[in-house]
């Protein structure tokens, strides 16, 4: 079976500075994987390289077997921060944009997600609280049906109830074969839904382990993660 994501010997430089060095990572289908790392370790850069937004990298990046940029973008969904839209834009117009741009956008699925998340399409983007905006982004992202979902810090700055709602919608709407890579700088809130943990440190991948394998040794995912960073403190 083709892996959802396969990265081989990938290096990424920006303004002559190394951002990511010799990254190797393979994710199987149907997994929920956390990408953990301190701020500045390279989480967002890695997401952007996979998503095809950061282009000047060397090495191989394949999503569901597709390496070519345009092909790759069709088989992944990245949770965008909606920065391209004006604050006065109505949510209904943002939806129309998504429907027009992504052939795999499933409106029926969006309606279900919208109802589940209690989103009002008559509202304007600028009116939304952080929690509601995060829910909108998740609804838009999961209305696409792709093998790989990239969620860059989907829970940052939102309240517990919104977080629960988002986690539940992931569990409900994730296709069986779809893999989710989500980044965060702490893990407690999502630990119990994870299949695997990838820790990034100093511009490369330090380790990639099944979450229950960590627990089988009597450790918690968060102490394990902290231990990888401890020597610096």
């Amino acid at each position, binding site marked *: 079976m083709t892996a959802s994501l396969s990265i081989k010997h990938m290096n990424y430089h920006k303004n002559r500075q190394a951002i990511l060095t010799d990254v190797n990572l393979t994710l199987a289908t149907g997994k929920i994987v956390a990408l953990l790392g301190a701020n500045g370790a390279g989480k967002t850069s890695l997401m952007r390289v996979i998503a095809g937004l950061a282009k000047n990298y060397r090495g191989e990046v394949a999503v569901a077997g597709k390496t070519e940029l345009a092909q790759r973008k069709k088989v992944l969904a990245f949770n965008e921060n909606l920065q391209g839209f004006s604050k006065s834009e109505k949510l209904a117009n943002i939806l129309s944009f998504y429907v027009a741009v992504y052939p795999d956008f499933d409106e029926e699925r969006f309606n279900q997600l919208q109802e589940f998340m209690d989103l009002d399409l008559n509202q304007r983007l600028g009116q939304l609280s952080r929690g509601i905006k995060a829910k909108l982004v998740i609804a838009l992202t999961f209305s696409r049906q792709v093998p790989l979902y990239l969620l860059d810090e989907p829970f940052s700055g939102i309240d517990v109830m919104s977080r629960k709602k988002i986690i*539940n919608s992931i569990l409900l709407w*994730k296709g069986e074969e779809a893999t989710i890579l989500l980044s965060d700088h702490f893990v407690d809130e999502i630990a119990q*839904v994870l299949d695997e943990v990838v820790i990034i440190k100093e511009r490369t991948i330090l380790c990639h382990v099944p979450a229950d394998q960590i627990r089988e040794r*009597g450790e918690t*995912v968060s102490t394990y993660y902290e231990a990888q960073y401890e020597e610096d403190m």
Partner: protein
Amino acid sequence: MEFKDNIPIYLQIEQYLYRQIVQGQLPAGTKIPSVRRLAVDLTVNVNTVQRALQQMNANGILITKRGEGNFVTEDEVLLAKTKQHLLDMELQRFTEQMRQLGVKRNHLVEILTHYLEEHIDDR
């Protein structure tokens, strides 16, 4: 449900379901909720639920009927064994706690009998 983060989640899901079976929320012969339903109710990953159910299928406590889902066994011997297993776990925990409090094994029965006599009206 609250999970402990230092014990594999699939083991905790198994324990949760064993309890539901023994306590009668999931009696012998009933269909258990779908994998996805359990995942959402417990806020855990579908793969983790599947792993727990596979284990319970292997133990015979759950029986998969093709296209219908998973059912609790009607094998009374197996159900009794499951109950005994849960009781043993509680007793082991109790014994260990008492040991840490300095109670010797041969005093446990005496202490417990005394406690039960004192608290005869407790439910």
